[in-house]
Structure formats: structure tokens, C-alpha cells
């Protein structure tokens, strides 16, 4: 009798146990950081969390919405373990609606949203097909959505439905931030007689005043201060390489991605420095980014303040290679760029490129609106 009573008491106590609260264990993992800090405690917390089932997934996913990359991976190991276990069971009641809301919340970090979309592919295979084309303004899924719009345009064009094709390609062009997709969409629109300005869309600076080459032997160009860095006066004449007289030359770059070839514009040379200068008018004060790439390297001054410079050589111009946050003021802003040209590579067949690409955009990569001021005219 005593034994039965004991069992009943135990059952009763168990029934009264509060449900598992994952918050303390999630908080332990959130403290992981640099230098492997917090790993021992995180391992214990992780193992405890992984003992539980589907009920911890919503809180786990909320915790995974973090910029702490180390903590995110600890959480992920729990997520993968629970999901694998639950997928093997038939009776799991998945919080599908929570998953859909989570994956659709563009304010959340992209990585776990993508993970949940992968799970939804298993739980509700039709979801992705309907949902993804709607994500044109979603930084995490924009690339795929634009790809779908381009494919839809191609299908319409193949079916001779030009109107539908134009609509899809325009949608793709407006939404695209990836330079390859921007140029693809623009080319497709142009093939249908439509206009599409990639330069404006990406915020590429293509109107320049150029001066150079200044003499800069033995890779001294990056550090050496030449006159344009002290003051830009477009009427000034400088003494350049080999004693040549240098003046500022107006240049309009026609490359669709704003790739400026200084070998063509300033002459093929080596161990030199060239300057590119532009003045732009922006309608309002705003945070923006300057994104640039140069061969061999570049330094950028905005309104007389140096905002970027990287002392590297022989590394090639690549689109959006360097990204720097800037603050543009309303009205006139000046941009000065210094591009260094190093010595010829020891292999004479390696081309000695001297080039620059620079654009002004928001943090998603959409070009900001600006007008070039025709300085010096």
C-alpha cells in the first residue's frame, strides 16, 4: 500500500513539473564569443536543449536570430539534432504557421530563415514555389526572386508575350542588386526596346576629372602625398612623371559597370599615381556606402576627408571589392580617388592593369540618386 502511494505521489509530482524553459540554456549559449569563450558551458547547455523536442524550436529559432556567429552555430547543432529526430517521427505537430511567419520576417538574420525554408521544403513542398517570387525586396532571398522573375520573362518572351516579358524583366531590374543580375535584366529589357540605366541603378560614378601619371617609384605612391591630395584646383598644372606637365582632363566613362581604364586615359606606365575627381549633388543628407575596387590600389577622400585607403598591390579590380560607410551631405559633395600603379610583374605576360571602379549606394547595394556637378566649366 505504501509502495502504491509512493508511486502515485511520484506520478503526481511529475505531472506538476513545470514545462521545460529553454531560456536559461539559450542565454548560456548567447554568451559564447571570441577566443572560444563560454564553450564549456555552451556544450552543457547545448546537450540539455537537444534532449527536448519540437516544443523548444520556436524559442530556439528566435535565439538563432543573432549576429553572434559562434552562438548561432551552437544553436544550429541543437536545431539539426531536434529536427532530424522529429522528422523521423510520424506524429510530430510542426509549428508550420510560426515557420512561415519566421521565414517571411525580413528583419531577421538571413541564415536561420534559410534553414527554416529548407525545413518547409520537406513539410510543405509547395510553399517555396508560391512564396519565393514575392521576395524581391527581401535582402536574403532577393537573388533567387530576381532569378525567378528573369526566368518568367524569358518564358514570356519565348511565348511571344512581349508585354509580360517586359513586366517581368522590369521587375527583375528594379529589384536586382547583384551586378550580374542588373546587367542581365538591363540587356533583356534593351533587347525588347526598353531603356535600363545600369549606371544610375548601381550608383556608378562615371564622370571624372583625371590627372596623372605622377611619379611614384618602388611602391611609394600609396603613402606619398601629391598636390591634388592637399587641394584640388581643376585649373592647376602639375609636374608629373618624366617631367611631363599634367592638367585635369574631363572623362566620361562609357563602360556599363563604370570600369575606368587609366592605362587608356592617362597612358600606359608603371610606378605611378593617378587621380580621379568628381563633384556630385545629392538631394538630402544621407548615410551611404562607397564601394570601390582598383588595380593596384586606391584611396578615397569624401569632402576632403579620407574615408578609405588600402595599401595593396597587384590585386585586381573586382566589383564592390571594398565597402566603406560614408555620410553624404545635402548638396555638393566632392570625391577624390588616388589610384596607384605598381611595377611590372616579373612575368612580362602579366598585364599591368591600372583601373578603378567606384559607386555610391545604400547598404543593400541600390545606387543613390545624385547628379554630377560640371565643375570647372
Amino acid at each position, binding site marked *: 500500500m505504501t509502495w502504491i502511494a509512493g508511486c502515485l505521489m511520484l506520478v503526481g509530482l511529475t505531472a506538476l513539473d513545470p514545462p521545460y524553459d529553454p531560456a536559461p540554456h539559450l542565454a548560456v549559449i548567447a554568451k559564447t564569443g571570441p577566443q572560444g569563450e563560454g564553450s564549456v558551458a555552451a556544450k552543457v547547455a547545448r546537450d540539455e536543449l537537444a534532449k527536448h523536442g519540437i516544443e523548444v524550436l520556436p524559442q530556439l529559432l528566435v535565439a538563432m536570430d543573432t549576429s553572434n556567429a*559562434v552562438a548561432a552555430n551552437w544553436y544550429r547543432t541543437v536545431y539539426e539534432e531536434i529536427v532530424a529526430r522529429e522528422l523521423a517521427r510520424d506524429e510530430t505537430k510542426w509549428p508550420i504557421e510560426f515557420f512561415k511567419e519566421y521565414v517571411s520576417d525580413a528583419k531577421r538574420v538571413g541564415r536561420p530563415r534559410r534553414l527554416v525554408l529548407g525545413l518547409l521544403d520537406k513539410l510543405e513542398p509547395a510553399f517555396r514555389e508560391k512564396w519565393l517570387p514575392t521576395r524581391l525586396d527581401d535582402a536574403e532571398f532577393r537573388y533567387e526572386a530576381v532569378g525567378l522573375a528573369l526566368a518568367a520573362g524569358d518564358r514570356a518572351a519565348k511565348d511571344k508575350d512581349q508585354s509580360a516579358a517586359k513586366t517581368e524583366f522590369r521587375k527583375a531590374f528594379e529589384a536586382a542588386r547583384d551586378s550580374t543580375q542588373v546587367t542581365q535584366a538591363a540587356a533583356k529589357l534593351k533587347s525588347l526596346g526598353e531603356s535600363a540605366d545600369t549606371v544610375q541603378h548601381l550608383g556608378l560614378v562615371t564622370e571624372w576629372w583625371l590627372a596623372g601619371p605622377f611619379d611614384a617609384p618602388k611602391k611609394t605612391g600609396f603613402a606619398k602625398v601629391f598636390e591634388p591630395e592637399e587641394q584640388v584646383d581643376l585649373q592647376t598644372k602639375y609636374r608629373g612623371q618624366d617631367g611631363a606637365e599634367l592638367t585635369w582632363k574631363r572623362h566620361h566613362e562609357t563602360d556599363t559597370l563604370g570600369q575606368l581604364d587609366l592605362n587608356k586615359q592617362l597612358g600606359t606606365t608603371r610606378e605611378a599615381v593617378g587621380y580621379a575627381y568628381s563633384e556630385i549633388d545629392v538631394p538630402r543628407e544621407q548615410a551611404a556606402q562607397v564601394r570601390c575596387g582598383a588595380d593596384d590600389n586606391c584611396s578615397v577622400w569624401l569632402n576632403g576627408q579620407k574615408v578609405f585607403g588600402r595599401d595593396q598591390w597587384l590585386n*585586381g579590380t573586382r566589383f564592390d571589392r571594398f565597402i566603406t560607410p560614408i555620410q553624404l551631405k545635402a548638396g555638393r559633395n566632392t570625391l577624390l580617388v588616388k589610384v596607384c600603379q605598381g611595377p611590372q*610583374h616579373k612575368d612580362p605576360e602579366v598585364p599591368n592593369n591600372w583601373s578603378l571602379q567606384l559607386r555610391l549606394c545604400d547598404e543593400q547595394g541600390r545606387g543613390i540618386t545624385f547628379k554630377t556637378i560640371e565643375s570647372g566649366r
Partner: protein
Amino acid sequence: MRSLRIVAVFCGLICFLSATSNGDNWPGWRGPNRNGVTSDAGVPTTWSATENVLWKMPLPGIGTSNPVVWGDKVFVTASEGRDQGELHVICFDRNSGRERWHQRLWGTAPTLFYGRSGMASPSPVTDGQRLFAFFGTGDVFCFDLDGGLLWQRAIADEYGPFENRFAAASSPLLFEDKLIVQCDHYGASYVIALDQQTGANRWKSDRPEVWLSWSSPQLVPSGDRVELVLSGSEKLDGYDPRTGSRLWTVRGLARECVPTPVVGHGMLFVVSGPNGTHFAIKPGGSGDITDSHVVWKNDKGTSFVPSAILVGERYYLADDKGIGSCLDAHTGKLIWKRRFGDKFTASPVSADGKLFFTNEAGSTLVLDATQASYEEVARNDIGEEVYASPAISQGKFFVRTAKNLVCVGIK
């Protein structure tokens, strides 16, 4: 009952012996001695896409890291996704190929990458208790051998993203209680030693003068000390692996270095190219030892990607374009040169007196390493493209193809 117990013990003994007796493990990049050579025996010399294939398992992504074998476990890393930021560490059963565990993780700072290798160029390394996996995203993960995550370092988050057009490829090494990772890139480069237990820094040595390279570090004994050797940016640097302080430098390497130096006969053998130079160098000394410690040089037939191999008195290499050469290890003089066929990314391996050169088409040329002359034993086509260096362990030859992990052994 007693007889059952005896049978069980006997079976256990057989299992243990089969797992441990037939040669070495392959614990990291280029095997037990980090030079492609193992004392393993019984390795098959002939196979095809079907012949002598014990098992074949699909991989979830791309990579050129070599398989790592410890006991009955085979570890492979891979990456996938648009930016290759989805990272995989997989453990297969050596005998059956069954997936024993699979960890999926996020890379914290993906970079530009090479289409064949993604973020999984560096080979993982194990000490038999823990597995350390470094990825081109700048992440280092430490697992127990059952797949439990023990610690992670997001070093590209901590010290700046790697600026690397093909993603970082350097395979870390273990030294005493440290994991040493070479991080040469266009940004702020460094070599870092992490505590194997905790992941914390033991030392970090900045390399402000270097740029991009994909070479892996090497250890070389020198008198009563061990030196850590890093190639990259037109030079080879020797470090104290206990402190990270720089000891010496040899100038004259290629601008961007990929091959890993090999060690033997009291020398370091270093190649970098293409159109570069083979060096045989005596370690030791301090400062610039270019003029005092270079034993020989040879500027013919250097490679950009594949590492060389030293077997006995001879030094072998297949360059990227498929030209094989054999040099005298003591003098650097050419012994023979042959067109092997097709291009090479994988580095050669050796066991049982044989040399194995696997080209990008998936054909492995087997040579007799006991002969000074060129002696071809076989050419084996696995039927798939191969960019990763093979592994040899316990009588098996492990080939990571572009899509699969294949275990070759005598059936």
C-alpha cells in the same frame, strides 16, 4: 555461457586488430608525416570505377580537403550554397561507408572562392581525440570524434574577413597542445596558434608584409628545436612554434605559394610556381639565411598547386600541366621527366614502395618508387574528376572525387 564469452572476446580482438594493425592512420593534410608518405602496406595498385571499390558515398558539397582517417572513422569537409557558406563536417564508417555523423554549420565570413573547392580546401586534422576543421570562411571548429562540437573560433570575425579570391586553403597542423593556422591573405595576415582544449589564442604572430597564399604550414626538426615553416609572398619564414617569434627567412619563392614544403635528409624541400624554383634548404640559423642555407636550387618543372613528395633519395613532382619529374634529393639534378597526362591539382601520395599521382580526370598513375628509373605500375581510372589529394590508411586508398568519397581496397 563461458564459451560464448570467449567467442565475444575473440571477435572483439579481431575487430580491434583489423582496425589498428594494418598500417597508419591518415590524421590530416598529407597524412601522418604531412608529406604524403605512409608506412602502410597492402594498398591496392589497380582499380577502376567498379573494380576494388569497397564503397562510395555522395558528398553534400564541394571541397578539395583530403579525407582524414582515424581508426574506423573517415572525416571529410565540404561546403555548399551560393556563397559556399554552408559548411559540412562528415564522419563515415571506414569499413562500410555508412554516415556516422554529420555536422552542418554556418561559415561566418564567406569570401570569393574557387568553383572546385569552395570553402573546404583546408584539410581537417585529428589527434585521435578531437577533430579540428578550418574553413575558408575563417572558422575553426573543434569536435570530439563522435561529432560533438567542443569549441568554435570565428577568426575572420575577430581579426577581419579573409580577402581571398579563391578562399583560404591552408591546412592547420597540430604541435604539442596547439593548433597552428596560417592566415595569409590580402588583408592583415597572420599565423595563429590556438589552444587545442579551449580554442583560445596561445600566440598570434602578425605577418604585415605578406599577401595572399594558400600554402600550409610545416614543422621541421632543427638541432634541438622544432621550427614552424610558412611559405608565401616570395619567401619562406621559419618560426618558433612555441612562441610564434620569427627565426629566419629565405627569399626567392613565388609571389603566391600553394604547395606545402616537405622534410627529409635534414633539409626542407620547397617548391612554388609556376615558373618558380625548387629549393632544398637546411633549416636553422637566424635572419636572412638565403645565402647561407640553400643547399640546391632547380628552376625546372615547378608547380603552382600540387605539392612534391620525397621518397628515399628521390624527390618527385607532377606540375599543374601534367609534367612529372624526379630529382635527386641531395643534388637537385633531374633523374627523369615524363608527361603524365592531363592536369594535376592533387598532391601525390606514397605507400608500400609505390607512388600515386592522381590527375584531374580521376586517373591515378602508380609508379614503382624503389626504382631510380621511371617504372609505371598501373593507371587506374576512378571514372570521376578528382581535385583533392588522396589518403591511404589501413590498406585502403581513399579518393575524394568532385562528388563522392570512394574507398578503394582489395576485395
